[in-house]
């Protein structure tokens, strides 16, 4: 990210709001990881369905566990899922998209495009179910399902960008001095797609957090630990009895974090938009 981009981002009120929201949640996640927050998420330290009090800001759940602690711990889970899926699917999408773009209309490109087409044709939740089925409910089935399917959009965008970049003079120069093709792709072409990856990465992050919630509700998500998706799944049993603690805590955090990322993604897209005329 250049200084120029940062200046533009700083002037974007919505973007900065998004960045601050994301930073606060990231801080919570770091505190959970380092053992400062949310460690009592599985302790039973109250009665069943206690209402809001100074001890239990969001009340307790049906086992008497503190909902605030679970919400904080769920933040860390959301970031774990989001980061893992974003990093892996972005790497996969960049490499495959880069190769497809560099060897465009060759056999490698055709195979990658075919594979992308196949994955895009299977409705995602069914694919996740199939993966969970094949892996016999392994705790990583959910992550794997997201990584295997989320790379395709990144790859499509990178492929297009690489096809554009490879026509430019500096790539021609690299080719002229006899640099091997693959080295050129990884050293000169792909680094020039960084701005796209940044925007695409935030979008994938949003998708991952959003998907975790649905998959956890369907019983295909997090098994050990707690996540906002599991809290919402719990709340679906409780709201009819008038217990809204889980729903409010998990629903609000989820909304705020998704909103933060959405605002940030929009602002990044505007700030990094290279098509915009300078000045």
């Amino acid at each position: 990210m250049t200084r120029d981009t940062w200046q533009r981002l700083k002037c974007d009120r919505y973007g900065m709001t998004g960045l601050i929201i994301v930073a606060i949640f990231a801080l919570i996640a770091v505190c959970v990881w380092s053992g400062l927050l949310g460690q009592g998420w599985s302790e039973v330290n109250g009665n069943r369905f206690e209402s809001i009090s100074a001890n239990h800001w969001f009340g307790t759940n049906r086992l008497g566990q503190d909902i605030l602690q679970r919400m904080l711990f769920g933040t860390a889970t959301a970031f774990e899922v989001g980061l893992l899926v974003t990093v892996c699917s972005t790497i996969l999408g960049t490499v495959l998209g880069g190769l497809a773009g560099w060897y465009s209309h060759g056999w490698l490109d055709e195979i990658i495009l075919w594979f992308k087409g196949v994955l895009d044709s299977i409705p995602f939740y069914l694919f996740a179910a199939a993966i969970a089925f094949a892996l016999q409910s392994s705790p990583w089935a959910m992550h794997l399902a997201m990584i295997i399917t989320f790379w395709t959009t990144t790859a499509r965008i990178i492929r297009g960008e690489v096809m554009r970049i490879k026509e430019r003079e500096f790539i021609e120069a690299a080719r002229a001095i006899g640099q091997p093709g693959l080295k050129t792709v990884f050293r000169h072409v792909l680094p020039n797609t960084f701005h796209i990856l940044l925007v695409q990465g935030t979008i994938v992050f949003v998708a991952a957090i959003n998907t975790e919630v649905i998959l956890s509700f369907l019983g295909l998500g997090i098994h050990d630990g707690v996540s906002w998706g599991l809290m919402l799944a719990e709340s679906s049993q409780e709201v009819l009895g008038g217990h809204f603690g889980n729903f409010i805590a998990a629903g609000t955090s989820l909304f705020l974090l998704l909103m933060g990322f959405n605002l940030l993604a929009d602002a990044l897209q505007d700030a990094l938009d290279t098509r915009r005329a300078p000045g």
Partner: protein
Amino acid sequence: MNGPYLTRRLLYGIPLVLGVTFISFLLMVYFGPDKTYELIGKNPTAQQIIEVRHALGYDRPFLLRYGDYLKELITLDLGISDSTGEPVSVILRRTLPVSITLVVPGFILGNLLGLGLGLLAAWYRGKWLDKLVMSASVVGMSISFLVIIIGLQILLCTPYGLNMFPVRGWQVHDPGSYFYYVAVPTLALILVTLGYNTRFYRAVMADEIERDHIRTLRAYGASPTELLFKHVLKNSLIPVLTRIMFSVPFVLISGSLLLESYFGIPGVGLVTFNAITSGDQPILKAVVGLTGVLFVVALTINDMLYSVVDPRIAKS
């Protein structure tokens, strides 16, 4: 009509269908759970194990087993559900109409509303109305489907809210009861898709409105309705149709999966949800394989229709 182009599109669909079915086969049949020991008594002899594996077809070569799976999908002879003992094709035939009647109103209204709001925002681009609509869609995009469903249930179906609609269930026999049971799921579907739809349609319409010929027409005093309906909407038909085609599987599958399992509506989504929780392989492999194939078929028809709408596509 462009014969060679249409044939090429058709041929392009074949490797996709093979890929989709192959992945479903690999994940759910080949690597799927081994049912040998469920069907066998205690302390089986080696001979018994071999017999059961043979009856299940586990000893057949890999490619032949894949061929069997393809044959099942083509003939719609999909085996018998593990949990209910009913033929899968009978279950699907019974539940599919329920799912379609459940999601169709929300799908249509969500797209129409998104199109309307997108047009409005694009027309008043940069004005306060545009900003309002766009901010509202970012908010809409940030609310999880599950939160929308639970929230609407609290607001509309419980004594903590208006308590006007049923908490769950599906006892539909006339238009009145249909409305009674479909209202809340429809609203949920509209809300979850509206943000994304509005944003997409605004982007498409804004591009179109900025074109030179529209500006010229505007300068010559064409009325906004004439401009929007005769020129803008008509010219942006292709991206709009693509959007709708691509969102059909998402809405039909994801929408029915979540709405039906949440509201206890006996459609394909609930059957699939139950199959996921109980590991009912015949149902899962049928649903995954068939939706994948249907998607490819829809995609191919879609592409072929384009070349009819816009002959330039076939040439490039």
